[in-house]
């Protein structure tokens, strides 16, 4: 009884989460351009999508910005965690508080404030400014994922390694890194996802010729979004889905082997 109730509950939540996604997937195969009438099954949007240079460029930009932003923010975030965990209580609380600001700020405020600052200091908007902005809002997610792992870490093992003659770098890679790795991976993935999903901040900080999928979608709102973008989103979604399943199976097998 209890079990069926739990099952129904889980099913309803999954339905809630995936119903809109399923709707979009179905619409991407709609022959017409409208969202509100089914014209017939068609793959035309998929064909058009691959032929569209703008969409392909936006896809490239999205992935490259997300990759570099996630990588840079992961490195900076991990370094920051190392530094912060060595600090005394007061500066640590202060820094963790500062770290929360980008999370608490409305996207639109972050985006506009960054744009205004870039303009004020005479930096013209381009790929670099978008990247800077993305790194800025990705760092907090990395720190929030990695910091707890640092706190669980036995600080003494690192000190012990140093005492035994390891260089700090060696001690870090051999002693600290393996323990905080899960935090780093989830931080990187979260940063990557956030970067891909963001549109407001990108919108305000990009320069000539820099479009991401989100800004492309947003700019089409005026004349109506073309189902090509549903097709693109469906493909991205399915790709990520498959990658995650494969990663899951591999890590599962690894765990089984280890135990």
């Amino acid at each position: 009884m209890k079990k069926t109730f739990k099952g129904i509950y889980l099913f309803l939540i999954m339905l809630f989460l995936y119903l809109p996604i399923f709707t979009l997937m179905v619409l991407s195969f709609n022959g017409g351009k409208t969202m509100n009438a089914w014209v017939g099954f068609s793959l035309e949007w998929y064909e058009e999508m691959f032929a569209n240079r703008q969409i392909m460029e936006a896809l490239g930009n999205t992935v490259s910005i997300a990759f570099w932003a996630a990588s840079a923010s992961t490195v900076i975030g991990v370094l920051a965690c190392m530094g912060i965990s060595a600090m005394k209580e007061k500066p640590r609380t202060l820094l963790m508080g500062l770290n929360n600001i980008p999370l608490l700020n409305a996207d639109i405020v972050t985006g506009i404030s960054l744009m205004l600052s870039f303009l004020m200091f005479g930096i013209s908007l381009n790929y670099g400014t978008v990247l800077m902005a993305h790194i800025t809002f990705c760092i907090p997610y990395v720190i929030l994922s990695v910091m707890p792992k640092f706190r669980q870490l036995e600080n003494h093992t690192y000190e012990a390694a140093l005492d035994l003659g390891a260089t700090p770098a060696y001690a870090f890679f051999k002693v600290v890194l393996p323990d905080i790795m899960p935090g780093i991976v989830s931080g990187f993935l979260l940063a990557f996802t956030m970067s891909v999903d963001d549109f407001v901040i990108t919108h305000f900080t990009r320069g000539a010729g820099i479009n991401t999928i989100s800004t492309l979608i947003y700019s089409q709102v005026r004349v109506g979004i073309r189902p090509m973008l549903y097709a693109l989103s469906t493909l991205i979604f399915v790709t990520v889905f498959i990658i995650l399943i494969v990663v899951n199976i591999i890590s599962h097998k690894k765990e089984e082997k280890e135990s």
Partner: protein
Amino acid sequence: MKKLLTVALALLLCFTSLAACGGGDGKADAEKTLYVYCFGDYFDPELQYQFEEETGYKVVVDLFDTNEEMYPVIKNNSADYDVICASDYMIERLSSEGLLAEINFDNIPNAANIADNIKPFIEDFDPGMKYSAPHTWGTYGIMYNKSMVDDPVDSWEILWDEKYADQIVMPNSIRECYMIAARLLGYSMNTVDENQIKEMTDLLIEQKDLVYSFANDNAREIMIGDSAAMAVITSGEVIYSKEYNENLEFVIPKEGTEVWTDCWAIPAAAKNVKAAEAWINFMLDGSVAETNFEYLTYAIPNKEIADLVDEPVLNPSAEVLANCETLHNLGAEGDDLYSEYWKMYKAD
């Protein structure tokens, strides 16, 4: 501490230089590249490739969603564009602030294709037609569903008919909503008289309870899905909407309406004027206009395709046009006034 400061300074240097030089690789062949700044999805993407093939320029297209988003970019010259697309009142604003370059129409022979009936409206916001060449144009009117509306639709007044409570879609934009009230009260839609604006707000508030939703792009989708009986919508959506729902009709109310024009223009800071002129000339070509019309279904004021546009609402008669107005730039104070009353209207 000193050490920390040095490191911080060094990093600051890296930060700014990365921000300043990233993506600057295209600068070398500036003469070969044309930077276009345009509303999203506002011309057939095939045309971009066609233009590149014909002229040898490389085209980089950037998109924006509203005129107001584009304005600060051009004003601060935060990114360099050679040719932009903007609406009537924004052309007026940009040119009055000296942000647009006069177009040398000698280099744009296809300007002869510009339809005559649109010229008075262009003259209205761009006297002498010096700064702009039209891309698309249209009017606002009422789209209604024949199966849901049995009264004759010929006046904005029907939007105030209680019979259609919760069945009406209004535009989610300040100037267009006020345009309707202005037309009913006989005011200019460019008025900045506070008493008149107040009166228009009161009139709109009377009708607010009847509104199903405020929507721009989504209005046509609501109509196609039979979710509302009437929508105030631009004429450009008519062909598209009728294709999916044959019950839809479009009427330009007898009180008159707004004529809008979206134009190409060249910013004063443009680096590649030659390419920009080539782009505008290309866009005014008859066959290009035809491609665009088929892609967008928005009316294109081009003589060469006049026969193609057989939908009368897309090419209104002189009689209808005589009763129409174009939006003007109202200046910061005028904009603030409208914005203030609009917020009150929305909050009411």
